[in-house]
């Protein structure tokens, strides 16, 4: 849930642990990543202003939108422009990422335009040098919170832009340094998953503790054909979508959550999922056995059971049943019969008795006995 994520970012990092990090992932099927990013940004800024969050400031690395866009965004959420200086710093990687304008100005091709003179924005002219970038982020953060125990949050507008200019290992190193830095409270970034290799996306997911992926409401079966059904699906996808969150918890379990969202005029609304689809991790548990171990109670109970023959040998003579007991009683009759089997019924009314005579005496004595007869309970 978006609420949960914002709360996790607000609460920040515990001492000695890495700061929580959120990756917002979207794709062309549902390109609402920037909306979710702006939403999280606005929530976090509201929390910072209200002093509810662990972090006291926010450093925003703007690569895909200009800083003025973010100023307007925050203004529209009711934040006072004048107060930006106190809690916000923007590292502008949008205006001149590779330093071309600087070089053109140096050789006089373009007239020097007055840059946005603002003490909240610092211009970055070389996004390929990630060491400098990370130093700038740290410096801006320290400007906000000072050298001491204060913490600040870091928001990276587009990690995809960063990966465009630098190798994944240096981006991953930057992110892991951010997370392990004492003064960083939380970090979040946006990633367009279809622009990159699967390994790159996996590497960024490795670096983060929360993953929010944005998916379309329903995937249209065939993108090319302009069926009427597809068009209605597209319409649905145009302002709605699903938001899946995977939260890595400290005990090693993963919390999975689902939400739907709807883009309205300028804001995004998250609603709980209407139908529970019950996502089960298939194939997770291949072979499940039955528990054959006994609990303590069961063990005691088992010890109490008196087994047959256990009470023998305690004083009474030991009796061994060898299958001939019945013969002793009816020995007088059995000597007469040789081969024919005679069944004699006792004419006692109300009481039935079966008397069985063996076919012959030289039969093996154990062949016709009831095996349960020799139990002596």
């Amino acid at each position, binding site marked *: 849930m978006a609420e949960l994520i914002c709360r996790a970012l607000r609460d920040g990092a515990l001492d000695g642990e890495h700061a929580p990090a959120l990756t917002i992932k979207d794709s062309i099927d549902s390109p609402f990543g920037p909306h979710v990013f702006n939403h999280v940004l606005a929530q976090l800024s509201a929390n910072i202003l209200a002093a509810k969050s662990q972090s006291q400031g926010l450093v925003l690395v703007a690569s895909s939108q200009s800083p003025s866009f973010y100023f307007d965004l925050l203004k529209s959420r009711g934040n006072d422009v004048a107060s930006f200086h106190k809690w916000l710093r923007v590292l502008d990687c949008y205006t001149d990422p590779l330093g071309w304008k600087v070089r053109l100005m140096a050789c006089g091709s373009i007239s020097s335009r007055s840059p946005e003179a603002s003490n909240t924005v610092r211009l970055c002219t070389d996004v390929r040098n990630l060491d400098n970038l990370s130093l700038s982020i740290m410096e801006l953060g320290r400007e906000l919170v000072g050298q001491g125990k204060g913490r600040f949050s870091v928001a990276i507008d587009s990690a995809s832009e960063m990966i465009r200019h630098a*190798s*994944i*290992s*240096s981006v*991953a*190193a930057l*992110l*892991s340094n951010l997370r*392990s830095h004492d003064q960083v409270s939380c970090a979040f970034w946006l990633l367009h998953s279809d622009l990159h290799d699967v*390994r790159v996306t*996996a*590497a960024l*997911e*490795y*670096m983060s503790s929360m993953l929010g992926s944005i998916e379309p409401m329903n995937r249209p079966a065939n993108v090319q054909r302009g069926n009427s059904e597809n068009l209605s699906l597209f319409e649905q996808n145009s302002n709605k979508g699903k938001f899946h969150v*995977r939260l*890595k*918890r400290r*005990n*090693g*379990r*993963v*919390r*999975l959550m689902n939400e739907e969202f709807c883009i309205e005029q300028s804001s995004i609304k998250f609603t709980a999922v209407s139908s529970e689809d*019950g996502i*089960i*991790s298939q194939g*997770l*548990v*291949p*072979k*499940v*056995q*039955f*528990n054959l171990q*006994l609990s303590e109670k069961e*063990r005691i109970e088992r010890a109490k059971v008196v*087994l*047959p*023959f*256990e009470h*023998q*040998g305690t004083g009474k003579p*030991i009796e*061994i*049943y060898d299958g001939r007991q019945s013969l002793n009683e009816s020995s007088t009759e059995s000597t007469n019969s040789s081969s024919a089997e005679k069944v004699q*019924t006792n004419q006692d009314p*109300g*009481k*039935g008795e079966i008397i069985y005579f063996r076919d012959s005496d030289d039969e093996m004595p154990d062949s016709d006995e009831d095996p349960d007869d*020799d*139990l*002596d309970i």
Partner: protein
Amino acid sequence: MAATKTRSSSFSRNISAASTPQIPGLKCGPNGTIFVSSGIPDLDKILGGGFPLGSLVMVMEDIEAPHHMLLLRNFMSQGLVHNQPLLYASPSREPRAFLGTLPSPVLSKDDKSRDHDLEQEKGLRIAWQYRKYLGENQQNFEGQRDGKPDYCNDFDLRKPLERHFLSNQRIDCFSLEGSPNLDPFRERCSTFLAQLPRYDGNLTSACRIAIQSFYAPQCEYSNTEWEMLSFVRSLKSMVQSSNAVAVLTFPPSLVSSSFSKRLQHLADTLLSVKAIPDEDKELANLLTGYNDMVGLLNVHKVAHFNTQVPVILEATTFSIKLKKRRSLVLECLNQAPIDGSSGTSYATTGSCSGSSKTGTLDF
């Protein structure tokens, strides 16, 4: 009349006297292998004694859960408790800091729940009418009792390892992040392993290598997959020719699938850990003890040295639980009892049999 003449053959069984080293921390196994404990008693039992000397153990991580750290911690602590040299490498800048999180062994005697199993078997009661004549037919259960009591310790994950174990000279730490390629690490491994070569004659001790998150993306060399593969291969050959065990963990989802397969084939013992979803009702219904579980451990391959016979395990998936929140136990997955209220229960159908009495039968 057969005259029983005991003829001693010219072939006598070669029971080498050196086969049982009384060295703490090492145990003899079948086929002349020598085992080193993994630090987790359940895992030792599953693997048939522990990790064989000279083997390479790989643990496939799940990027969503830190369970491989639990395995590594126990492995490293066990080595330190037995005073075995240790080399630890990790992608963080300060690997020494990790040593502070190693658990300390549990010393109390009342935690020996292993004894329970054996006593239960010894007390096997047979309801046999001739037992009185033939004497007690006691089944002597020769379980996988780990010889000496301190071959494998139970570790308390909440208590850190005592200082005097850590101030041991023989702990070496290496950070994988700084270097652009793996050559310095390879050098360090070979010098470390040179202290205990295999064919030295006398077996004094064993050394342990623990490499954590080998394919972490923040390391510069992580793009060069062939280099990393050749490093692992040379590590394996170095470990085979010395008295050492190496444990290497890597996240397979960060590696391209063909390299992941190659790495898995290089391993002598292959384990993998998996995270489980939280508050999953389906899983809670399927398994007992779901609430205590923190993850799953899969055993894919078990090392077998000096033998052609493969090791086939009864179960390959185990649940990782923290017993009393402090020690790691691995348990078989047990199916939860099916809810009795659903469906025709035994009690209701039993009534028809209960009403019949062993009474008068009229013929």
